[in-house]
């Protein structure tokens, strides 16, 4: 800026302008310094932007690298002999399927005869294998007496081994699998019994203590019910409140108070809403813990400001000429709103609603406080049954010590992010498709 002031002096009429010597090294140096500083500011800005972008990239990349392992699950295909003395036709559900599995494995390893070794051998397969077999036989009792070939999931340590995540060169004491167990697994691999199909169980089965069996079905349905309740409450209430404040409310202290309140609610920490839900919905009203109903009501309170603000913006964007025309034709104020303003504002309201619901889908803290982080192995069948939600399921899995849950957590996050991207893309599409310039 000093140069600028010099220029002012130079051009003042009382003093004769001195010719600027543009080749003066002192001047050139000053200019170069200033341009250097300019470049420095620009580079610092670019650097900051790059840091932010690289953090985003690191975040996504680490999740994908970790999570992609969980999208496949190692299976072993074995021939299970469903003999009639192990499983009776009268009560197939009570059959000794554990023994059938032990026999099927033993067929591959005739040299393992010791009882304890056979039990260790059984640990290759997931604990869920016997139930998978049982369900199959119960569904089709005609299998009893025959042999079925079935791919069953292997337990977590062997799944890690098959995916190359176990450092085989480490000292035996430092890994979860002994050399012998690894040897057994290699035998199965060489026999061609090991396969790694797409892990559909990740989406279709509910939670489990065993990583290889754990899936997101319960969490997905829980999130669905929670968001449904949230939508059913916040959408109509948000539109009604937004329209009232924009179209009907008199301008007075009271409506000012409502407005200030809405703005403040949007900034209240989410955990405080959890405290509110715990004290009021669960403590005073006696609603059940862990229920999607309570979760949905809590999230609705948090989403309401978003929808109200979006509604007001969308309603404000409808030109007054449309209202005037309708009023001139004899419509009542309510008819103008329901017949003209609301339909024209709907795309904007829907966009805001979807963005609000996407935020609600990722919200975790309030759901933790109302108990939606319980261990539940059933898919909820309504808004009153205890359940988890997608983000709380991620929290539970992130807290689980088993190695297999790390990749499953990352995979669950990928699922959550996919839903968020979908919802936001839908919002962007709606805005682009129906956006109107008046």
């Amino acid at each position, binding site marked *: *800026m000093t*140069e600028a002031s010099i220029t002012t002096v130079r051009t003042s009429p009382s003093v004769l302008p001195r010719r600027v010597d543009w080749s003066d090294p002192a001047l050139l140096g000053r200019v170069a310094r200033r341009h250097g500083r*300019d470049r420095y*500011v*620009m580079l*610092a*800005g*670019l650097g*900051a*932007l790059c840091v*932010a*972008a690289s*953090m*985003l990239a690191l*975040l996504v990349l*680490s*999740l994908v690298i970790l999570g992609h392992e969980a999208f496949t699950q190692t299976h072993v295909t074995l021939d299970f002999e469903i003999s009639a003395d192990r499983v009776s036709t009268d009560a197939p559900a009570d059959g000794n399927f554990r023994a059938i599995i032990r026999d099927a494995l033993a067929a591959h390893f005739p040299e393992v005869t010791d009882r304890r070794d056979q039990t260790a051998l059984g640990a290759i397969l997931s604990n869920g294998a016997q139930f998978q077999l049982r369900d199959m036989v119960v569904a089709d009792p005609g299998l009893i007496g025959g042999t079925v070939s079935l791919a069953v999931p292997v337990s977590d340590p062997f799944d890690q081994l098959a995916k190359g995540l176990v450092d085989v060169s480490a000292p035996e004491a430092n890994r979860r699998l002994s050399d012998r167990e690894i040897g057994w697994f290699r035998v199965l691999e060489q026999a061609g019994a090991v396969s790694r199909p797409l892990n559909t169980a990740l989406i279709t089965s509910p939670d489990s203590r065993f990583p290889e069996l754990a899936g997101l079905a319960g969490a997905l349905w829980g999130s669905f019910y929670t968001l449904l309740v949230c939508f059913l409450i916040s959408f*109509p*209430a*948000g539109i*009604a409140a937004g329209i*009232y*404040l924009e179209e*009907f*409310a008199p301008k007075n202290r009271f*409506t000012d*108070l*409502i407005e200030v*309140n809405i703005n403040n*609610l949007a*900034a*209240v*920490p*989410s*955990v*405080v809403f959890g*405290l509110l839900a*715990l*004290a*009021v919905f669960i*403590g005073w*009203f*006696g609603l059940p813990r862990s229920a999607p109903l309570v979760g949905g009501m809590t999230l609705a*309170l948090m989403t309401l400001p978003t929808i109200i603000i979006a509604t007001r913006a969308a309603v404000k964007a409808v030109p007054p000429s449309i209202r005037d025309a309708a009023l001139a034709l004899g419509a*009542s104020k*309510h008819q103008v709103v329901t017949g003209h303003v609301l339909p024209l504002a709907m795309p904007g309201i829907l966009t805001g609603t979807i963005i609000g619901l996407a935020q609600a889908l*990722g919200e*975790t*803290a309030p759901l*933790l*406080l109302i108990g939606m*982080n319980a261990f539940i192995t059933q898919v909820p069948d*309504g808004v009153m049954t205890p359940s988890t939600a997608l983000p709380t399921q*991620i*929290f539970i899995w*992130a807290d689980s010590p088993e190695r297999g849950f790390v990749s499953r957590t990352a995979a669950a*996050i990928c699922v959550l*992010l996919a839903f*968020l991207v979908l919802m*936001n893309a839908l919002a962007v599409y709606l805005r682009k498709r129906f956006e109107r310039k008046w």
Partner: protein
Amino acid sequence: MLGFLFLVILMASVLGYILNRQTARRLARSGQRLHSLSGFHGAFAVCLSGLPALVFALLWLLLDDTVIEAIVMHRLTVDQTGALSAGEISLLKSEIRSIAGGKVFGTPEPWKLDAGASLANLASTARLALFGAVLAILVVGIAVAQTKVVPAFRARQSVERVMSGFMVFCSLVAIVTTLGIVASLVYESLRFFERVPLAEFLFGLNWEPQIPIRADQVAGTGAFGWIPVLVGTLVITIVALAVAIPIGIYSAIYLNEFATPRVRAVAKPLLELLAGVPTVVYGFFAILVVAPALRAAGTALGIDVSPNTALAAGGVMGIMLIPFISSFTDDALNAVPRSLRDGSLALGATRGETVTKVLFPAAIPGIVGGILLAVSRAIGETMIVVMAAGLIATLTVNPLNSVTTVTVQIVTLLIGDTEFDNPKTLAAFALGLMLFLVTLGLNVIALRIVQKYRELYD
């Protein structure tokens, strides 16, 4: 069963609507001039039948459990419940409830079985009564609405009054929510301060909420001084701001002054993506990637870094806050009048000089407002710290150590089955009250600053 109830209400509403509209249309066709359109007569039937039935059913469902439980508990004699503490009574309640649900564990006393049976009995009676009452409301509502279909009836005004009422009610939800937050926090906090003096809470230097649940349990005696928790929160907030402020402001400056429109069109939504990532994801990122990396770096430099170092939680929180600060800075820079920028450039200042010496000082109030909002966010942020920060409250300002925060304590105190009768649970509400007051104060100040500043240039 309940779904069926709501289905009945819905179908009755549709029926009422159609019936009334048909009647109104018949009248109109017979040559009479109706005051309101037939659709309003139909909607009036809904306002008279479905709407009250729905409100009634919801209120009933909200309150019936509490009332029935109170009746059952009231019937028990004093010698059965008189000597029980609050915790034992709630245990008794859940036992009776599970007996009523058909799940009998062990061999409870006969009076408990009786209570369970009467609870189940009352519950089914209540359900039947609800169905009966709802049906009665629907039938009476539709019948009354039918009699109202006469040419002179101002159905439109009635329907619009109901609509206005609904809209006012919905606008009040925001106030009711705020009141609910304040009421629940203050009420539970007062109960907490009955047990723990306010001065001890505000100025105590020890936070050890692990108190014995049973008399014979070995546990700490419990200390509820929130200073270490507050200090931990501040440490993490400062770390977060130390990351977010420079990156946020510099990227906003770049986007605002140097970036070509194309770069801006790509980079701005990319930054906003950081704000859209759920915090539970950031938490996982912090424990899985950032904390081990920091620990490894510390080991390489010979510094002892705690696994739950405040740097990890704070740093990741800072990443989350970048778009927040950058968008506020961007807005503030944009709000500076064009003439200031043009004047500076016309005098020969470089773009960097214009931004740092003219635009930035003029935009400082707006940026400060944004930073205050970011502070409020950081203090209230929960999942990142729950996952990545420590649980033990140690009074330290060293970010390499593990510290705990207000939100972490709230969540850990309340996770799992909680009863509202011991200081451990109530302490969470006291912390929640403090959190609410602090963030509210910050938000109000920040919004004031931002608004004042906007008026300055408008």
